[in-house]
């Protein structure tokens, strides 16, 4: 068990150490400074923009940014619907999988456009190779959309004028070519050399030692799994995601996949510090997020390594922990760690089945998505956290009787209204969705895989995962039917775009305001005290909003097992 704990610590430590230099690189890329890859990619990007008729140097204001973002996302969504519904007759379908139904294609297309990857289908039978490749394209561009949105915020906080916030298409494309693509090539190569398939041959057959004939699904897995993690998308090539021994063949690939899903969200925090030349602020954000992460992660690892008390009562050797839904090569500690990392970061890939984790571990996974601000997904993590910073600035301003200011700009009623709408939308979508599902048991209860409190947790998890754009699930839930496909589909759209539009709008409005130089009377927003204030705001909002729902699900299940 000790080596399992060391493995987890090593994974986390390596990621943090690498995040600082990588953050510096990201900041350079977005500031337009010289980097190593200029010679390869500048001509290529110029070619892309010439074909598309886009002037990459044409600056946009925040409204133009949002229009450009929504337009291109809509194009991707329609194209996704078309490919998924017609994959049956389109090329690259060696396994002969049928086209998706309209409601499933709606859900799948949206969830990949919004970086969620909820996946109400199973990779082996639900999509063709062409669809897998198209979804992989969405994994690149949806992550890049989030990163571009975060950079609009960075630029707005740096600039003194509000109409020169860079070009959306340029920010989106360089996120793909300069950051996601090179990293994906490295990660995919490591995976391929460790036994992850990268082939277009379709299913293979083998006869097992006991004489059963077994079909083995392969495919272009390595390329897919790399970007699934680097872009914090999380949608697996196979049904069981990174628990599958071809998608995650050994402990090394597990460490690499874990590293690649955490690196960009962590590096973006440091990139903010380098970009704005406010390293202290980046440290404050990093500390608050890390504290939140550890508070969720450490107890989960303990509960998972202790194992299921109900099975312990049967008298077997519990040395390896809660092994239902877990893989022997990864172990319970690494799976417990992964379950929190993936929910905190909005990846939603899994290397163990969350449905079978301990009740309170399930609660921690839910809380990680309910706060949705500790590290967070590619780009959007920073945007979510920014909303909490604005709230904390306002509240602490009121407490000490000073005008609320952030980086020399006054926070006023309009910004506060936007921030409150964004902060309250998240609990509203989760709780209203779950309440609706619970109100129609004649439709929804047949989809549950477990009775009682745990069944309620399955529904709560599905809506939480949708609203956090996470994509993991209590996968026992039978979610491929119109009810779940359509309700979660709409939650996905709202919970993706409003939390992007809100912070970008605030940033745009702030950039327009007069700059007030910092003085002795200014509330410092990079101090430890302010960090605690942000933490308190996050805890209060999540605790007050979600505690009743958690009581009905995981907490009740925990007490029922004692």
């Amino acid at each position: 068990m000790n080596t399992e704990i060391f493995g987890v610590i090593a994974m986390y430590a390596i990621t943090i150490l690498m995040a600082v230099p990588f953050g510096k690189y990201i900041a350079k890329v977005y500031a337009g400074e010289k980097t190593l890859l200029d010679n390869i990619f500048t001509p290529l990007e110029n070619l892309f923009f010439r074909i598309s008729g886009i002037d990459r140097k044409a600056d946009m204001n925040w409204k133009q940014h949002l229009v450009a973002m929504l337009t291109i996302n809509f194009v991707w969504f329609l194209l996704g619907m078309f490919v998924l519904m017609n994959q049956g007759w389109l090329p690259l379908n060696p396994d002969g999988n049928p086209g998706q139904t309209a409601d499933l294609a709606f859900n799948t297309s949206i969830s990949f456009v919004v970086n969620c990857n909820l996946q109400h289908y199973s990779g082996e039978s639900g999509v063709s190779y062409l669809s897998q490749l198209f979804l992989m394209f969405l994994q690149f561009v949806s992550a890049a959309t989030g990163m571009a949105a975060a950079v609009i915020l960075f630029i707005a906080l740096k600039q003194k004028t509000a109409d020169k916030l860079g070009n959306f298409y340029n920010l989106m494309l360089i996120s793909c070519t300069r950051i996601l693509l090179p990293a994906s090539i490295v990660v995919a190569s490591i995976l391929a050399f460790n036994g992850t398939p990268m082939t277009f041959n379709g299913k293979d057959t083998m006869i097992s030692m006991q004489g059963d004939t077994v079909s083995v699904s392969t495919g272009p897995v390595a390329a897919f799994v790399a970007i699934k993690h680097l872009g914090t998308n999380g949608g697996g090539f196979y049904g069981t995601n990174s628990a599958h021994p071809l998608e995650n063949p050994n402990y090394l690939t597990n460490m690499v996949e874990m590293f690649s899903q955490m690196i960009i969200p962590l590096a973006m925090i440091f990139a903010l510090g380098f970009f704005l030349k406010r390293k202290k602020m980046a440290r404050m954000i990093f500390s608050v997020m890390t504290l939140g992460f550890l508070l969720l992660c450490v107890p989960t690892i303990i509960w998972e390594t202790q194992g299921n008390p109900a099975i312990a009562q049967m008298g077997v050797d519990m040395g390896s922990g809660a092994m239902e839904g877990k893989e022997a090569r990864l172990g319970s500690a690494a799976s417990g760690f992964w379950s929190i990392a993936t929910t905190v970061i909005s990846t939603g890939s899994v290397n163990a089945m969350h449905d079978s984790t301990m009740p309170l571990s399930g609660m921690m996974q839910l809380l990680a998505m309910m706060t949705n601000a500790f590290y967070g997904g590619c780009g959007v993590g920073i945007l979510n956290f920014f909303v909490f910073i604005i709230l904390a600035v306002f509240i602490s301003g009121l407490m000490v009787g000073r005008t609320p200011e952030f980086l020399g700009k006054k926070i006023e009623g309009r910004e506060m209204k936007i921030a409150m709408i964004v902060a309250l939308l998240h609990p509203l979508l989760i709780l209203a969705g779950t309440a609706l599902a619970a109100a129609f048991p004649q439709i929804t209860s047949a989809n549950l895989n477990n009775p009682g409190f745990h069944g309620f947790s399955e529904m709560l998890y599905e809506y939480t995962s949708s609203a956090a754009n996470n994509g993991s699930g209590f996968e026992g839930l039978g979610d491929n039917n119109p009810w779940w496909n359509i309700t979660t589909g709409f939650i996905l759209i709202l919970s993706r775009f409003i939390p992007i539009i809100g912070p970008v709008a605030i940033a745009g409005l702030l950039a327009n305001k007069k700059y007030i130089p910092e003085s002795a009377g200014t509330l410092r927003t990079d101090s430890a005290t302010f960090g605690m204030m942000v933490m308190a705001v996050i805890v209060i909002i999540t605790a007050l909003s979600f505690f009743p729902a958690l009581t009905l699900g995981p907490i009740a299940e925990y007490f029922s097992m004692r």
Partner: protein
Amino acid sequence: MKTNIFPAIKLTIVTLLFFCVVYPAVIWAIAQLAPNNGHGEVVTANGKKYYANIGQAFTEDRFFNSRPSAVDYNAAGSGGSNKGPSNPEYLAIVQARIDTFLMHNPGIDKKDIPVELVTASGSGLDPDISPKAALVQVKRVAAARKLSEEKITELVGSHIEKPLLGMFGPEKVNVLSLNLALEKL
């Protein structure tokens, strides 16, 4: 909207070509250098081909058994049980697995059965078990094959894979390679 729609469509087409064709082609080319040309790791024995990382259903007494699987080791449709920890129906299944194990392994104490041998894996295709889970089966396998327990224990010992760099992650035994070696004894 109008100024954006055509650039958006055109940019989508070029990036689509780049990320759906060029990127996978690059990875595919790199994978040609990898072991078994990117088809996944394969073991061949007696003219038969097995995927090293895909677990198989080993249920007979003369083999080291693999972990329970919710999909019966169907490598074209992976899946876990997704049973909640308090589900009474699930707990009854676990109890039944313990009873079955004790029946097939006389002389083994219940407290020596590692929990992973009575719980289903996440993928349903878990190729590995822990060293403890292999050692607890030695007595049964030795009896079924009429070989000495020492010899089998030694075989298990030589198939224990150490953690990564000796430090990270659990020890494990690949059930397929252990059983292949067992057949050669």
